[in-house]
């Protein structure tokens, strides 16, 4: 058992006929994901890589009962696509799309809470249970089974660190993308809670960045509730305040969300903080027996 997804998780792809949707559907199928259906308004009846396409999520849901959905839709349509999935009973929403308006994200999260559904993202690379199944856009080749759970706010940096771990012989249990937006669904705490309970995970890597207080909250949670060793890397040590560093969420606002504050909080919670991404594997080796 991995966290959030496993071999049996049935997946819907919203926006399956677009370039991204099509490409990643193929990649997910290759990795072993149970992609059962896709949607694309007006394209109902087509197939993508053998996966049937429907006009509406409701129709796809009634026929194939997907548990999760991954969204490859333009940002302007993100809110409707997310609500459509939630209304149709989807319990895990993976929102790849970037630039979804902030107020749209608030509505998505509000309705997801009302429906008791989990959301990853927006602006996430998704989630991968190494060697079993993935719902996301991460390159297949980096993810080898192993004892380390990884949660990251950013994609490529996550791959970079997972790649460095793999080079050092350290595989991953589940790798989770939290999403780079200001408002995202599951946060570090939610995912740490899962890793703490996951028998396959022996150590946890937390990849954060400047902006917001998610890392500080994670630190408080780790102190109280996490017995497994945690290694962290925080991006943005050199970032000036007030500038949005790529991710909508990566901004030091009014003196909050700084690198220093996050590292201090994590260290105080007993987390080993790497100064460079490449230090993560060696720190991991120290904490893993």
């Amino acid at each position, binding site marked *: 058992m991995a966290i959030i997804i496993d071999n049996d998780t049935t997946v819907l792809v919203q926006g399956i006929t677009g370039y991204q949707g099509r490409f990643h559907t193929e990649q997910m199928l290759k990795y072993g994901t149970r992609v059962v259906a896709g949607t694309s308004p007006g394209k109902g009846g087509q197939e993508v890589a053998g996966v049937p396409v429907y006009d509406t999520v409701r129709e796809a849901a009634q026929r194939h009962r997907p548990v999760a959905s991954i969204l490859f839709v333009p*940002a*302007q349509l993100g809110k409707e696509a997310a609500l459509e999935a939630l209304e149709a009973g989807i319990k895990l929403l993976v929102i790849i799309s970037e*630039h*979804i*308006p*902030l*107020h*749209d994200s*608030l*509505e998505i*999260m*509000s*309705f997801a*809470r*009302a429906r008791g559904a989990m959301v990853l993202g927006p602006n996430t690379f998704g989630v991968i249970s190494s060697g079993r199944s993935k719902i996301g*856009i*991460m*390159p297949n080749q980096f993810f080898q089974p192993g004892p380390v759970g990884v949660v*990251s*706010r*950013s*994609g*490529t*940096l*996550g*791959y*970079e660190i997972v*790649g460095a771990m793999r080079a050092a012989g350290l595989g991953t249990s589940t790798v989770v993308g939290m999403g*780079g937006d*200001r*408002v995202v*669904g599951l*946060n570090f705490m939610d995912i740490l809670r899962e890793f703490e309970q996951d028998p396959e995970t022996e150590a946890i890597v937390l*990849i954060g*960045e*400047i902006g*917001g*207080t*998610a890392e500080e*909250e994670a630190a408080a949670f780790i102190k109280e509730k996490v017995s497994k060793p945690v290694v962290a*890397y925080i*991006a*943005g*040590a*050199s*970032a*000036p305040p007030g*500038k*949005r*560093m*790529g*991710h*909508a969420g*990566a901004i030091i606002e*009014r*003196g909050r969300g700084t690198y220093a504050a996050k590292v201090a909080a994590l260290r105080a919670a007993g987390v080993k903080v790497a*100064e*460079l*991404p*490449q230090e993560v594997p060696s720190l991991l080796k120290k904490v893993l027996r």
Partner: protein
Amino acid sequence: MRLYEYMGKDLFRTYGIPVPQGVVATSPAAAELAGMKPPVVLKAQILSGKRGKGGGILFAATPQEIKVAAERLFTAPINGYSVNRVLIEERLDIARELYLAITVNRSLQAPVILASAQGGMDIEEVPAEAILTRPLEVAIGLPSYVAREVASFLALPSDLRPEFAALLQNLYRLFREKDAELVEINPLVITAAGQLVAADAKVIIDDDALFRHPELVRVEEVSEAEAKARQYDLAYVELDGNIGVLANGAGITMATLDTLQYYGGRARNFLDIGGGASVEKVAAALEIIFASRPKALFINIFGGITRCDDVATALVEVKKRHGLPVPVVIRMVGTNEEEGVRILRANGLEAYTRMEEAAQKVVEIAESAA
């Protein structure tokens, strides 16, 4: 997108939120002719905090003083910003100053009202227990009972409460309908005559939602390079170092900057080409960076959706077109790595696979060039 104070106040007016009488002048002469009866306050329209401390807010009790103050504001930059517009407003007779804002709380994934009876100063300096933080349910919005809660916390006199409730509800409507990240009134003034007036207005609109707000005037405070980057959908920030950086992914770009700093270097910029960038986009990115005259360029690609060969091709094309103005250090791994390296080699370029090694190298080059 942050709005100028006068634009925020125009929005306030549209939404029925009381603001002082005022006019915007674009020159000292226009300020004189604006016909505002003293006493007035003149406020430099710049997107900077602490305008008061920076000399950007001046008072005038006579027409002569208006002239003098306007000249002063238009002449010298305030907090490093040059002043193109001055807002001239009636001077309020202030009895109390409150703080009132609506923004988004990331942890709660919800809008929040922030309110304090200690207005007029930087909210960062107000102790937490003097600030009310009231989360809002987006499914419900801001009903009158929420306004009552806030009025209660601010200990407003009961005859002001209906007016306050209307103001707060209008502020929330603005926040939602205009896709604001922040609407802030600091100070919200209670005048000696017992009126509520928004003496300042800070409004920040969500850039990601601008597409549905053609009615809002665009406030552009970006350099030519930033404007060009935006056109190509590149995430670009100018910094003050001397090493140009091109990477893919926001997190890894930040980490690249941090790694350079770790080894004693400083980046000239943050530039994230994003996922799956085309040859054309990468070429545009390179041109933007070269135009900022760095001492060296660091390309850090961890190929996933982005293909190494595309980046290599773009670099080679730019090289063929203009030559490379500064030394380039390349780190390249991932999707189509071998093909990328082959293209580079065929054009006399080498690539590293380890990020630290490449970072150390480029810092060294930049140092020796400086």
